């Protein structure tokens, strides 16, 4: 299935886009999404491999399942205040 991972801040500016689209299996977990992001961006594989992902607006554990209609977002380099 296709997952659109939302990205923000300096990462979005650096990649000049608002999301990263990846393909994962129907039984994918959050960890599989991280793997797919790392595979798509091999120069920053270590970052994407460990980047925190939120599923439907809450941080999600690596073994959480991901559904095709979930909203997935990469939450790194935050800095409010």
């Amino acid at each position, binding site marked *: 299935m296709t997952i659109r991972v939302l990205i*923000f801040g300096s990462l979005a500016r650096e990649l000049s886009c608002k999301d990263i689209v990846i393909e994962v299996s129907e039984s994918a977990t959050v960890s599989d999404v991280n793997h797919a992001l790392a595979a798509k961006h091999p120069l920053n594989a270590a970052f994407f491999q460990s980047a925190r992902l939120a599923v439907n607006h809450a941080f999600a554990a690596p073994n959480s399942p991901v559904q095709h209609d979930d909203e997935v977002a990469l939450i790194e380099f935050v800095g409010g205040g």
Partner: protein
Amino acid sequence: MSVLVRISQGALLSDRLRHIPSVAPVLQQVGATLVFEGIVRATELGRAIRALSYEAYEPMASNTLTELARDILCKHALIAITVEHSRGEVAAGERSFRLAIESAHRKEALAAMDEFIDRMKRDVPIWKSAIYI
């Protein structure tokens, strides 16, 4: 024992959002009020800026701020927490963040404020970018 969180467009007003518990026995235990305001400085990494632009991923940003405030309130036995944060552009010299804590004593208010801001900067999905002159 109450928490109020508000993310609003543009610079914060100079007056803080009032949010004192109205229950008299609780109110009478307030011995310390600590207010932190974050102000946009005129330079970022040595370059002059006109403003910062804040992007909040909603509703996660508000939800995460509220959960964080509740957790800090319980952990430090505070009386009230009020959080205000800007989204969008905030000009240099203007306020973008305000955290107000009411507690019985000073020590827990200071500890709570430090912990709140550290965790906010790590966990709350708000990003800022500089708009240079």
